[in-house]
């Protein structure tokens, strides 16, 4: 944990500026809800913003939050891509996984009591078929956050 913190501080002082090195693959988070035992089809998580406007060039709080969430999704995909089976188990118990569950709960929105959801991480590349990287366990769709 301390090593990660020190690495993040070092990255702050010496940024690599190489975030556009490889932009051939993007990652998508799909979700499906389970209601009374019936699974819905996988569908990409909805985006909150549906319109574009000039004003968003200057003030775009929801769009920037979604970009940050997408950063978490990309980071999770990278963590899984380089992990062994043991690493994936470690990922499932980690803070990044918990953040994804919370992102999903926020984006799924209204749900009935007893509903569950499941998510999967998909790698997409224009020249290849989509690849499923990770399928989660089932989680309650509604949970009080204290």
């Amino acid at each position, binding site marked *: 944990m301390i090593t990660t*913190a020190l690495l993040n501080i070092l990255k702050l002082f010496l940024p690599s500026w190489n*975030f*556009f090195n490889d*932009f*051939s693959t993007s990652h998508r988070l799909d979700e499906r809800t389970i209601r009374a035992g019936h699974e819905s089809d996988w569908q990409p998580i909805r*985006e909150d913003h549906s319109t574009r406007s000039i004003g968003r060039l200057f*003030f775009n709080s*929801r769009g920037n939050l979604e970009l*940050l969430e997408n950063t978490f999704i990309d980071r999770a995909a990278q963590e899984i891509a380089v992990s062994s089976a043991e690493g994936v188990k470690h990922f499932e118990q980690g*803070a990044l996984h918990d953040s994804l569950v919370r992102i999903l709960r926020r984006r799924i929105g209204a749900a009935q009591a007893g509903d569950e959801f499941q998510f999967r991480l998909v790698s997409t590349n224009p020249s290849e078929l989509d690849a499923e990287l990770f399928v989660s366990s089932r989680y309650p769709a509604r949970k009080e956050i204290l």
Partner: protein
Amino acid sequence: MTLEPAIAIRAIQILLGAGILLQAIEVLATRSGHALLCMGNRPYSYTVQWLTAKMLVRLLLSIPLIGGLSQTLSVIEPVFYMALIISTGGLVLRFDGPLGGGSDSMMFQALVGLLIASFGVVNPILTRIGLGWIAAQSVLSYFLAGLAKLRNNNWLTGIALQTLLRSNGP
């Protein structure tokens, strides 16, 4: 044409102050969503309060930066920059990485440069080193991103552009 260091510093202060102000307002507007990402094992309500307090402090610190720090707070200028640097570092650590990508990295570099430049009263060369640091990081950010596009086949064939246009973005 050469730019007077004092004018350059003032311009950077205004741009940086405006960036910090806008970011603080944006995060405050969506603090509940941001808190979900950075709460870790801490209680949600505590994280929302922590984030709100942090952003309000940054918002307040951005005002003298825009209004004219060197006229009002010149004696404690380095302390002022240090407060913003520590605040930025705290946010980055809490989010386990840069908060919003390249813009936050550049904000941090500008703060470090201004901190170094603020010691120009001790030795004027420090003003030039501070401004040089900001200039070098600005040039590097564009140069290295451009170099990556030249070296990566996916950028040359257009695949990366397709991915970029298909990805989720505001």
